[in-house]
């Protein structure tokens, strides 16, 4: 086994108990255990908040859609058949809820204040450069469609493979690759400076 194989196996080993723990929680949620549901909520809230923030581009909607998502989990815990990871199921619910919410508020707004920014580092120039880069990325993300943003977010920030993303957004894997391809091109176009400046 090569190094990468060993790392992957280690990740799988460490991920397994977490997935088992989540499923145990879900089984308790199905039995209407509110404490288990609160634990599950707190486990998923940060990840869903990030995902929905990028998808919705409207901070005032994020909490509402997030809670709608988790309410579906609460009410429909028995509907989870275990054919996918629990996170895939929950993110798929969030994706559908977000698309539905966007139909009511279809016009995206560019709101860079959605994100907190790290405090300036030791080098002011370096900080300005980072800030410029982040602003460009956030702006470029805001101009993507919600479907493209979802794929970018799930890839870059949630470390999901294209097959799992296809399950979440309910489309073929080639569609995921196509969306990612076009989204990356748009992101690159929005970046300040030449490609060489980045490397």
């Amino acid at each position, binding site marked *: 086994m090569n190094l990468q194989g060993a790392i992957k196996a280690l990740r799988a080993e460490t991920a397994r108990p977490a997935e088992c723990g989540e499923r145990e929680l879900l089984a308790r949620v199905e039995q209407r255990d509110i404490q288990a549901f609160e634990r599950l909520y707190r486990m998923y809230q940060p990840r869903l908040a990030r995902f929905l923030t990028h998808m919705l581009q409207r901070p005032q909607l994020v*909490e509402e859609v997030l*809670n709608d998502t988790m309410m579906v989990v609460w009410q429909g815990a028995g509907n989870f058949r275990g054919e996918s990871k629990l996170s895939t199921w929950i993110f798929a619910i969030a994706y559908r809820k977000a698309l539905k919410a966007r139909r009511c508020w279809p016009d995206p707004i560019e709101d860079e204040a959605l*994100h*907190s920014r790290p405090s300036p580092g030791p080098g002011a120039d370096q900080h300005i450069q*980072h800030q410029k880069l982040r602003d460009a990325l956030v702006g470029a993300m805001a101009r993507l469609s919600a479907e493209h943003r979802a794929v970018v977010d799930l890839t*870059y920030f949630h470390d999901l493979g294209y097959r799992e993303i296809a399950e979440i957004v309910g489309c073929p894997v080639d569609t995921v*690759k196509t969306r990612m*391809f076009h989204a990356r091109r748009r992101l690159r176009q929005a970046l300040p400076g030449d490609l060489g400046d*980045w490397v």
Partner: protein
Amino acid sequence: MANFPGANEQPHDEAEALLPWYATGQLDARDRAIVENHLQDCAQCQQQLFVERRIVDEFGTLVPQVENGWVKLRASIKAPVQSQRPPLFQPLVEMWRGAVTRPPVMGLVAAQALFLLIGGGVLLSLERPQVTQYHALGSAPAPAQANMIVMFQENTTEQQMRDALEASGASLVGGPTAADAYLLHVEANGRTRAIASLQSDRHVTLAQPIDGSTG
């Protein structure tokens, strides 16, 4: 048929399409081999891989500012409160419900049972862990402490309950208990008016303070 740019496809295009997932370590062995073989000879993809990793790093520093909405969600879930109630109270609940349609003498007996029931229900609700103990900094204000209790006739609709509460100026902070009682909060200077308002509502069967005040 695959339709993404690079499907059917030149090795460069296929590898480039996989780069984001290579950068995040999410490719299986076959896909990874495709990318790694191609990267050895393609300066453009090597450069692009740096950009991918930079994007991942930069976006990773962005933290969305979203309030934790657990308190709100918890407030909208009523079922567990009922399901966790011990069966001990069921006979008293039945007695109370029956009393509504029985002669006055039975109603008196039922009222005594009701007194015990409400006292027990309030104690239980006070013993339950308060949602405020999980209250996160920056999240919505914690619910107020209950200082009144109200009960409605069995066939009262949600809208009628809302109307009654709105007219009284009281805020709902808990319930329904096993006896279908609701816990309310009302400011001290509005308590007398709130009780009078609720007691005059035809859907209300009981409205009284629960914190020792006489109203």
